[in-house]
Structure formats: C-alpha cells, structure tokens
C-alpha cells in the first residue's frame, strides 16, 4: 500500500485533495509535490488540502506543505488546509506555521473563503 493515498475532487473552482496516510520524507512528500505541481500545470490554483486522514507528518512533510504554499502563492493561487488532526496542529503550532496557513475545520467554510 502506498504511504500516502491522494484523491482529488472539484468543488466549484476549488480543487479539494483528500489525503490518507503519512506525509514523511520520501514517498509521502514526493506525492504531495507531484500532486500540487500537476494541478498548477492544469491551471488549478485554488487548492484545499484535506488532511483528515493524515496520521503522521515529519519535518520533511511540513516542509513540503510550506513549499506547496509558497509555490501556489507565487502562481497567484491559494493553498488552504482542512481538518488537521491534533498532532499535526501541534506540529504546526511548534513551528509557528499556524500563523502562516489558513486552517479550517469545516469544509463549506473553507470553500466559501476562496475569493
């Protein structure tokens, strides 16, 4: 089984990426990078990462989320996070990244936040 399973769905002009598994150095981080790169190539710049099924993230995975965030911003898009587990929320607090990311606990609120 892959370390990280990724499924995409479209909600209006926002692409929701449902992730399940681990975002850690190697396969998981690469999967996130590839997915974001492909969406940008397809012109999809409003991206919502649903992390409800992500059980574990290491510093490499956090770094990949930051890279995705900066890459999408540079392209004029928006990356937001949905449904953080408590552990991932703790890691984002430790790294002070909760101040950087737009984080939502409710999908419809998240979707409505895109302009």
């Amino acid at each position, binding site marked *: 089984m892959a370390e990280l399973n990724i499924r995409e769905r479209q909600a209006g002009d926002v692409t929701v990426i449902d992730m399940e598994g681990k975002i*850690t*150095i*190697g396969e998981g981080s690469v999967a996130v990078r590839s997915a974001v790169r492909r969406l940008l190539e397809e012109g999809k710049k409003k991206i919502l990462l649903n992390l409800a099924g992500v059980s574990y993230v*290491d*510093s*490499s995975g*956090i*770094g*990949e989320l*930051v*890279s995705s*965030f*900066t890459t999408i911003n540079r392209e004029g898009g928006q990356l937001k996070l949905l449904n953080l587990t408590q*552990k991932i929320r703790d*890691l984002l607090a*430790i*790294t*002070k*990244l909760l*101040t*950087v990311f737009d984080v939502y606990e409710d999908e419809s609120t998240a979707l409505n936040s895109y302009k």
Partner: protein
Amino acid sequence: MTEQVLPSRIESIAEAAATAAEIAGRFGFGEEALFGIDLAVREAVTNAVVHGNRQDATRNVEIGYTTSGTALVITVRDRGGGFDPAAVPDPTDAQNLLKASGRGILFMRNFMDDVRWENHPEGGIVVRMTKNK
C-alpha cells in the same frame, strides 16, 4: 542496550522509528511520549542519512537504545564530516518561516528532554537524545 546498524537509505528512517517506538513502548511510555520519540528518531536518522552520510550506501547509521532508571537514551551516529547545531537557523524566526527545511532539530528538542551532539572519537557525529518517564 539494543544496537541497530542501518544503511544510509530513506527506508532506514521508518525502520529506526519503528524500533524506537517498540522499545519505548515496552519501557512503559504512553502514547503521547511514543509519538514524540518516534518523531525525534525519524528526524535524527533523517539528518544522519541525508546530511551526515549523504545517502552514501557504504556508510551506515548506528543507533543505540539504552534504558536506565526512568530514562530512555537513544544515540544516532553518522559517518559524516561534522555538524554545528548552533549554526542551524531558528526555523520559527519570521524570516525562516517559509523555508522548506530546517525543522528537524526543533522537533527533536521539543519532544525529547535532552538533546546533545558529540564528535565521535573515530569519526562522525553522535546525537544523544534522552526521554524521561
């Protein structure tokens, strides 16, 4: 003491973390501590594999697990050229927040009670991490 010698491959990182979690669990740490120990070991072994040994398959990473009293001490040795933890920029400084790397040591220090680096007399760096019950 349990010793583990792993090749400098990305796959070794999860293998070390699983061993650490198993030993720490047997030693009686709870779920929250186990998460932190697992993550700290992942970060230490990542540093050894990627930065210390530069994924050179001819260089191993040596990991030691020792329990004494209420403490679990985990050592991770690489065969790299050296490392100054004080030279690593603080990833929580505003100017570093959007950098893609540099958060591993922060996690190690956050989740373990003591973390220190030593030069090994026969070469390489040893990081020694202690977690108390």
